[in-house]
């Protein structure tokens, strides 16, 4: 592509890579429900889509601008509430808006509250900012019982998404149609948030993250930067909220709770806050824990918490950083040589994982669930948690796993240090 500027010609190659990546993403999103049919899978995918938007919006604050917030669910939740009220108005014929455009309403609502609360929260930074966001989050949650007209009291506000005239036969009744709506908004939001990182505000936000003081000395008001980023982040959070409202057809105080704020923090961090696609990964993992795992075991939050704490301690860059760390190895052709030691690590990890699961599930059975006796089964193997044998097995797994881990970790470290020649 050549342009004429004055008397010089400039060639700018079409950024093919960009189109390819987004096109591929769109393709994957379109094809997924065909690969994983069934109601449960579609629900899972839909929730992942919503969580991806939510986590990416959160990372605009955390990873891009260095702002740790404990109250991000406020924007998603209030966006969801406004959206659900508007949806009910559409249903009652008081307002005309295509249902597919409802996320925009959520986004604008989120941005509005971003303007409102952000004014207070962005006056401080660092730990104090984190505390204010916690306070505001608790405040909004605590006030949910005080305004039953808006928050719907204990039961929340329910709605029906099948309203208005069907468009080309699409009513958004079936789960699959909702999934495609979510996927479309997810793609648009991802592109939007990525594009933002390539704008002046996006780059200055990075500068604020790296050195908030210096930014003032290159002409920028750091506080103003943070405020604007928060408003944009709240906008996308509102979109996620509205999509959640459409998906579940109910919004309650839980949508603005500290639990949700904590959840998005966990998801973003686990995925990796330092890379754009990190929160995408984290959102997927989080939903797998929260929705899929929660069906298998009551202790899923404990597992998630353990996973999170281990990540903070040993892989603070998140899953994305683990993946990225392999890229230079692959590029230098050394990845294959790492595989044996990685495999050893994986085996050790599996042993420790088995030990953890066995211990936790047994404690759970004995302490909480013993009403029906202590017989239980894990992965198809039945045993009695009231007897000594399974506890000995757990202890054995811990011991062997710990030893294997120490060995494997040392191997991996040695391999990495010597460039794969050890």
């Amino acid at each position, binding site marked *: 592509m050549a342009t004429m500027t004055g008397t010089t010609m400039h060639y700018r190659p079409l950024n093919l890579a960009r189109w390819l990546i987004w096109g591929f993403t769109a393709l994957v999103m379109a094809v997924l429900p065909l690969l994983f049919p069934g109601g449960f899978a579609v629900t899972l995918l839909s929730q992942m889509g919503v969580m991806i938007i939510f986590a990416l919006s959160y990372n605009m604050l955390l990873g891009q601008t260095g702002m740790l917030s404990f109250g991000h669910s406020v924007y998603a939740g209030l966006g969801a509430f406004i959206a659900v009220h508007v949806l009910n108005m559409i249903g009652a014929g008081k307002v005309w808006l295509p249902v597919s455009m409802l996320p925009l309403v959520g986004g604008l609502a989120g941005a509005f509250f971003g303007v409102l609360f952000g004014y207070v929260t962005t006056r401080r930074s660092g730990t104090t900012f984190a505390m204010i966001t916690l306070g505001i989050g608790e405040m909004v949650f605590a006030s949910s019982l005080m305004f039953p007209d808006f928050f719907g009291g204990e039961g929340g506000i329910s709605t029906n998404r099948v309203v208005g005239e069907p468009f080309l036969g699409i009513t958004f009744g079936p789960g699959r149609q909702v999934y495609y709506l979510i996927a479309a908004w997810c793609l648009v939001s991802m592109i939007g948030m990525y594009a933002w990182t390539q704008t002046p*505000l996006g780059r200055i936000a990075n*500068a604020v993250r*790296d050195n908030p003081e210096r930014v003032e*000395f*290159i002409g920028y008001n*750091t506080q103003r930067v943070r405020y*604007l980023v928060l408003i944009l982040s709240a906008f996308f959070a509102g979109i996620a909220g509205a999509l959640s409202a459409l998906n579940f057809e109910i919004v309650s105080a839980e949508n603005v709770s500290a639990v949700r704020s904590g959840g998005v923090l966990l998801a973003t961090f686990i995925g990796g806050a330092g890379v754009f696609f990190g929160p995408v990964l984290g959102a997927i993992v989080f939903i797998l824990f929260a929705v899929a795992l929660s069906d298998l075991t009551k202790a899923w939050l404990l597992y998630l918490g353990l996973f999170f704490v281990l990540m903070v301690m040993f892989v603070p860059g998140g899953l994305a950083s683990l993946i990225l760390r392999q890229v230079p190895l692959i590029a230098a052709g050394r990845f294959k040589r790492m595989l044996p030691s990685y495999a050893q690590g994986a085996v050790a990890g599996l042993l420790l994982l088995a030990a953890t699961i066995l211990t936790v599930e047994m404690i759970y059975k004995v302490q909480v669930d013993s009403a029906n006796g202590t017989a239980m089964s894990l992965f198809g193997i039945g045993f009695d948690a009231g007897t000594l044998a399974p506890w000995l097995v757990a202890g054995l797994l811990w011991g062997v796993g710990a030893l294997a881990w120490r060995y494997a970790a040392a191997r991996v470290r040695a391999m990495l240090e010597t460039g794969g020649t050890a």
Partner: protein
Amino acid sequence: MTATTPALELTDVRKRFGQTEIIRGVNLCVQRGERHAMIGPNGAGKSTTFNLMSGRFSPTSGSVKLNGEDIGGKPPFEIYRMGLSRSFQITNIFHRLSVFENLRCAVLWALGYRYSFWHRLSALRDARLRAEEVLELIGMTHRRHAQAGMLTYAEQRALEIGITIAGGAEVILLDEPTAGMSRSESDHAVELIRKVTVGKTLIMVEHDMSVVFGLADRISVLVYGEVIASDTPEAIRGNPKVREAYLGTTLDDAVEAA
């Protein structure tokens, strides 16, 4: 603003922290286009004076005027927008961004892009060209993609200067630009400073006397929060008060040792 309005003028500036008065009535006048050095023993308050000039601190009393306008109490970004830019003694760069990105950030406000989130950075030719220009000036073109936090000390100091001048400010403040540098690195830095401050007003805090005497048109000596002398290098060299302030070591010795 007339031709004789000094670029920077401090009148009886005082700064107190709690009970301690660090700056005890500083009077300073720097003309436009002048290269002015501030020297003095450790703890004299040179960095504090810089902070007062650049908005990091506000004066307890007295006035600081930039091109005739009072800037006391204004935040740093406002003072920057009025045309004063400073570097830091302890390198203060954006460590996770590349060298090029560091410089591009430094030019964005000056080029008027402000808080835009609708411009695509890669399409901003003027920002790119200006950043590349500064990159060339500071001799870091070959390191443009390096992460700023991974640079060597001298490279970081060069980047620090680059960030300071990238926005095109008229008044440049450099806080100990050659601190921690070897002789050859210092000479290099001096050449760089000379190059980038052509036609601008430069105020420099320095300990290295050869740098000071090599670059400065005028020198001010700060001792215990007061300016005890402000004159041409020759006059300063011969000033008995200044000699006393350096605790017995004559200025000649200091220059020779350097």
